[in-house]
């Protein structure tokens, strides 16, 4: 959980936990959606959060944007624990720094509003509208997301736009409040293949040119390799491994990451069978996960200790860590540095 690039995180989650209570008064069940998640987002860097459906990755994003109140943990923005600041004004100010983009550009835009209205609203709400300049501000936003000619796009309604164009409007809307952090929850998974790269490339440009910090929530680890500087892997509510994206793909450490990567179709390698064959296990019920490693029931390397307690974070080098007993004990040289 360190970084080799000597930067202060702009947004940091420390041991964020979210429990949902399910069932009725007679049989209450606690669903441990996210357990002790820690991550850092840095200016000008993309961090990917990769996991399968129900792994808790969207819940983390929703806690980071303060849509969900964490059960416990801290959320540090610019050095301040902002979970303690609960007032409407503080929340508004937080949201003008930390914006979210959703998966479905078809439902996230109001169908009866023109693009110019969609973009004008946040300018007023967050006090970013400049007197007599609003039209130029809108055109500039459209220009930044490459929806040109801008005059033409400003007058369109969402139904007149393709999925990719709508997602660009959603990005422009997020940019309207001049955020420092953008949380993108599966921003391309509903788009056609030919459109996806345009959106990821646009976000990469915003990262590089404007220094925006991104959290990229996705189930597609290949796209994380493409877009994210760093990748975190989630399994059943826990972040189990963190690494620079390329290193993670080349040399996955956690047995779950290994299983995940061996399951991803890879046209460049041609047919491979049997990789995931031994694994018949399925993701555990989050209400039934015990105190041990949630992957233990499926893990080919499982040991007794794995069922008893969640492994601690083991740093492997400056850019990598893993939560797995296979990598314990901590090499002394690394431990000394931490």
């Amino acid at each position, binding site marked *: 959980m360190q970084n080799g690039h000597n930067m202060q995180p702009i947004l940091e989650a420390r041991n964020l936990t979210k429990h949902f209570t399910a069932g009725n008064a007679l049989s209450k069940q606690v669903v441990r959606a996210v357990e002790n998640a820690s991550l850092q987002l840095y200016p000008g860097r993309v961090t990917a959060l990769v996991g*399968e459906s129900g792994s808790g990755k969207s819940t983390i994003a929703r806690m980071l944007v303060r849509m969900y109140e964490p059960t416990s943990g801290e959320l540090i923005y610019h050095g301040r624990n902002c979970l303690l600041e609960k007032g409407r004004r503080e929340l508004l100010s937080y949201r003008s720094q930390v914006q979210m983009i959703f998966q479905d550009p078809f439902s996230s835009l109001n169908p009866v509003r023109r693009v110019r209205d969609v973009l004008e609203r946040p300018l007023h709400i967050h006090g970013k509208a400049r007197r007599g300049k609003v039209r130029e501000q809108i055109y500039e936003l459209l220009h930044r997301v490459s929806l040109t000619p801008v005059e033409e796009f400003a007058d369109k309604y969402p139904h007149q736009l393709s999925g990719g164009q709508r997602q660009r409007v959603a990005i422009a809307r997020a940019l309207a409040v001049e955020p420092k952090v953008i949380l993108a929850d599966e921003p391309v998974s509903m788009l*056609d293949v030919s459109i*996806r790269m345009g959106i990821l490339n646009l976000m990469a440009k915003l990262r590089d040119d404007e220094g925006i910090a991104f959290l990229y929530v996705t189930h597609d*680890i290949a796209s994380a390799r*493409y877009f994210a500087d760093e990748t975190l892997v989630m399994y059943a509510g826990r972040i189990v491994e963190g690494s620079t994206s390329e290193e993670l793909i080349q040399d996955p450490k956690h047995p779950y990451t290994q299983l995940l990567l061996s399951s991803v179709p890879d046209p460049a390698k041609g*047919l491979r*069978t049997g990789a*995931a064959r031994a694994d018949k296990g399925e993701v555990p019920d989050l209400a039934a996960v015990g105190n041990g490693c949630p992957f233990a029931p499926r893990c080919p390397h499982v040991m007794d200790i794995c069922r008893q307690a969640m492994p601690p974070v083991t740093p492997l080098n400056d850019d990598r860590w893993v939560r797995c007993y296979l990598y314990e004990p901590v090499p002394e040289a690394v431990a000394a540095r931490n």
Partner: protein
Amino acid sequence: MTTQTVERARAYDTTRALLKVSNLEVEYWTRRGVVRAVDGVSFEIYPNEVFGLAGESGCGKSTIAHAITRLLKPPAYIVGGEATFDGADILRMDEDKLRGFRWEHIAIVFQSAMNSLNPVLSIREQITDVIQMHRQVSKKEATERARELLQVVGIDPSRINSYPHQLSGGMRQRVVIAIALALNPELIIMDEPTTALDVVVQKQIIDEIRELKERFGFSILFITHDLSLLVEFSDRIGIMYAGEIIETAPSREVFTNPKHPYTQRLMNSFPTISGPRQALLGIPGSPPDLITPPTGCRFHPRCPVMIQGLCPQVHPELMAVSASHRAACHLVAEEAADYAKRA
């Protein structure tokens, strides 16, 4: 040009096709106008082959699956073309014959099929229903067969009395595959069979389907928008754009040596987990509205190598550039002519 194409296609068509689709045309008659969802599509599927059909949403790939099983519902209508299965004319079969034909010869696993199981019937009832509808067997024999089928798709037969909600998504999808296998069909159409599943479960199911195919020797029409999966799993691929098949070739060749500019761009549109990490461009623009498709080549408004005066006016036919590779692009005309001379 059309007659030439037919000539070449015949030269290529040396083995016996199990399914042969020729010039299939399907229209949706909507209030906004007539949508030509499938426009003159031809392809064949050979015994024991996985033929993959790929394209962006709305390109017509699922409509083809529904058309060749005669499951299209108004406002969709087949307005032209032929589809024959082992010589039998599917498009002109009466309802009676069709009922016997589906499941017996062509089985179907549709998108989100795992949600298509009847929630109030047990797994046993759902499998035995299909068997007893088509075969004169006792309930006991049908149940025995159902147990076998569950075993085959990797589900413990002791779960035969489970209801769908008691099974995970992956297991439900296996049940649907078991039902498809029930009558030993020669062709199984799989339309996005693993789209709703996580990647680990997807891998398990794809591996299983592959083994079942080797064991029972059926063919698969595999439809997906996931190009990585398509290339990995298919023997041969047809790439669709705006209602037409614009390229067909063995899957390795589609990935490593695509001929059509759309395929070339498409294969450079998705990141993979191996190989160099390089800039990927995607394709500017969006697929066209099929009520008023572009004139000439339908891809010309998005094409980076469009030829003025030709592509916007003249519609390119599918031309063979080798025994197994066809593309519908004016740029391959020369290569196709060379091949025609040699062949």
